[in-house]
């Protein structure tokens, strides 16, 4: 087990180099000079332009720029933004906000999908099942930014239940609205998987055995059915996590949440190489680690899955 974890963690290293190099290349391939854009419609003096380009190593070929970046990383320095802030500081400030949002969204997603998925499975073909199918199709089909605007307009501006934007107060309580939108947008696929999985499990021999022993539904469903039905939902949540990170970028911009996604959005607009690469790399590493944790979870849910050679 320990060797397995270690091997998975070592795998992060090539992923790190591969992704940073690829992203750096993509940023480099973006047309246009970000320093020129700093001057707006006004043309800068060539000497000043050259001097600023040298300051950010933008006058060097891409592989040299990448080299500077990697050297910086090993010195614990991810570079500076155009506004002179260290990318380390920016990450340290924004990551907790996004993490909080992600945890809330996943909690909402799980709660909704497990409860609604299980009830749908137990009442297969009845009204509850049909209504929840239609609703989940609507949530899957609606792009997340549309959900965001609808929630912002009706729940915040019209009904006044929430604040329309988050801004400075990004405590747990203030993040409810964006977390609900994110959670709801993710819940549909998990809920369908949960429903299918519960239906399958209900037909298993051991469930029939449990019923024939005279156990009540209240005993059978939580202990025998749910635990075994969770595996596909958890696998899916690892993939969903990628969707969540992308969704967070949109959601954070619309609800003005000072998180990783919002900063990444702004940095991309400004072609800030070091900021974009660092942020996307952190996304990649988080994604890899989340997948690792999910793989380890299988072992807990189903001891038959072993991590031996």
């Amino acid at each position: 087990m320990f060797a397995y974890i270690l091997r998975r963690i070592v795998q992060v290293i090539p992923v790190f180099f591969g992704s940073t190099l690829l992203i750096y290349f993509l940023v480099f391939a973006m047309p246009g000079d970000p320093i020129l854009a700093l001057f707006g419609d006004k043309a800068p003096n060539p000497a000043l332009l050259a001097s600023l380009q040298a300051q950010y190593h933008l006058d060097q070929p891409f592989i040299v720029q990448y080299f500077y970046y990697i050297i910086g990383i090993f010195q614990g320095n991810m570079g500076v933004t155009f506004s002179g802030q260290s990318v380390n500081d920016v990450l340290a400030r924004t990551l907790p906000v996004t993490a909080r949002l992600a945890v809330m969204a996943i909690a909402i997603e799980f709660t909704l999908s497990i409860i609604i998925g299980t009830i749908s499975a137990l009442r297969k073909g009845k009204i509850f099942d049909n209504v929840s199918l239609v609703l989940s199709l609507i949530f899957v089909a609606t792009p997340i930014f549309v959900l965001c605007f609808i929630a912002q307009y009706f729940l915040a501006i019209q009904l006044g239940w929430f604040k329309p934007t988050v801004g400075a107060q990004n405590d747990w309580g203030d993040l409810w609205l964006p977390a609900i939108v994110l959670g709801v947008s993710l819940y549909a696929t998990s809920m369908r998987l949960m429903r299918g999985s519960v239906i399958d499990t209900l037909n298993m021999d051991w469930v029939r055995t449990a019923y024939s022993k005279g156990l009540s539904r209240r005993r059978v469903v939580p202990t025998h059915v749910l635990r075994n039905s969770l595996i596909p939902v958890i696998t899916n949540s690892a993939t969903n996590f990628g969707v969540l990170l992308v969704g967070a970028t949109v959601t954070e911009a619309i609800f003005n949440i000072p998180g990783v996604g919002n900063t990444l959005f702004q940095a991309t607009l400004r072609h800030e190489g070091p900021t974009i690469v660092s942020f996307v790399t952190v996304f990649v590493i988080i994604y890899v680690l989340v997948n690792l944790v999910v793989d380890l979870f299988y072992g807990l849910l189903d001891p038959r899955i072993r991590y031996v050679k």
Partner: protein
Amino acid sequence: MKRNKLALAGLALVGAATLALAGCSGGGSGTSTSTSSSDSSAIIKTNGSEPQNPLIPTNTNETGGGKIIDEIFSGLVYYDADGKPVNDMAESITVDDPQNLTVKIKPGQKFTNGEEVTSDSFINAWNYGAKLSNNQLSSYFFEDIEGFSWDEDSDLTGLKKVDDHTFTIALNKPASDFALRLGYSAFYPLPSEAFDDIEAFGENPIGNGPYKLADKDAWQHDVQISLVKNEDYQGGRQAKNGGLDIVFYATQDAAYADLLAGNVDVIDGIPSSALATFQDDLGDRAVNQPAAIFQSFTIPDRLKHFSGEEGQLRRQALSMAIDREQITKTIFQDTRTPASDFTSPVIAGWSDSLEGADVLKYDEKKAKELWAQADAISPWDGTFSIAYNSDGGHQAWVDAVMNSIKNTLGIDAVGAPYVDFASLRTEVTNRTIQTAFRTGWQADYPGLYNFLGPLYATDAGSNDGDYSNPDFDKLLSEGISATDSDKANEDFQKAQEILLKDLPAIPLWYSNVDGGYADGVQNVKFGWNSVPLYYEITKG
């Protein structure tokens, strides 16, 4: 015990007296009731964006940082709501001749760290801003001062300290509107502490303006900055409120949502998604007035069919083929004003009756005629295109302009989108662009020259179309050498009449400033530079 009772009695007396006084004044004048209800300690919440640079006046050239810098620093002059300069730190600014100025500073004015504002505060700050190796984005503001160099580090030898409160400015060429420029943020003074560690200073600036940072952590990056009234400030921009919370928004939509929900007091931008509805949503709390922003598109001479007489005819034909009235109405919901010159209606000296301004009116017949005349010189082939950046919301009007041209002249006309602003500007700056392209200008200071000199003078820094006309240059330099502003503006208007013939850029419209404020907020006035005069705003 006794003392307490005495104090209470005193308080009661004072209370009775104020009540009586309030009664008198309330009866006396109608206006005092609305002002007396406002709370002078109220914090005004407004929109902004994370500054792109540390808060150093000479390195701040974008609106997010500029808005903050203007509130925490004061220059020699400030501009009132009409764009007129009013002395702030200066006691007097004397223009001795078009190349020499003498500045006297009011004694006893202080930075918030207690240091007095002296001649050195200005001289050192400007020298810092001008020095090449300091890489300051606004260094071009000092290029007219003697000693300035684009190629090497050099001192501004034109700045001479006479005494602690007097200094002189010598310019390397006539610039009679130099005094008018002094209200721009690049000319703000800095305390000597700034130069010890300019980076740390930019993070936590010490200013001399109507507001100051609330505390050490006032600037929460990407979130907001909190300013409070600077009680030591003595100038004309005394804050009538207790402070400002400038909340940084990633999108205008978020700011507008907050305004509708009453979470923000004043905003100075309306998202394009709400342009059609905001005047209905906000009623008389909606703001829509012209600003000092001129928008155009430029057709460089070097493009095929656009040089010499043929080019002049084609430019005029294109200009007359655009229905500006209709486009500003349908695409921009009247939040743009069709252009009638090359400047802006909020600038002193603006005129809508220049000779040749007809070329900016939609005239289908005349446009066709002119185009046919050009075809007689050399027949048109190919497609006419305007390049624009698709990250800036330009597609709708470019398409409309292209349709207008296509239908009027019967030629192929399409927009040429670039992914973003940086890539468009790169091709424009390198002169590799092969089509016409959108251009715009937001004035740095409220003077006609700022809309003309940097853009159309031969070899000027922002002359993206490489326009050159000796007659225009002559009128421009006569204007800038004239110390009488009426005479100067007359020259600038004549110079524009040449532009109306040559059309180095085709004027489209002036941008309006769009904004709004919440219930219970009063005295919201927008300045010439599209930013509300925050010190005037009251609420409660």
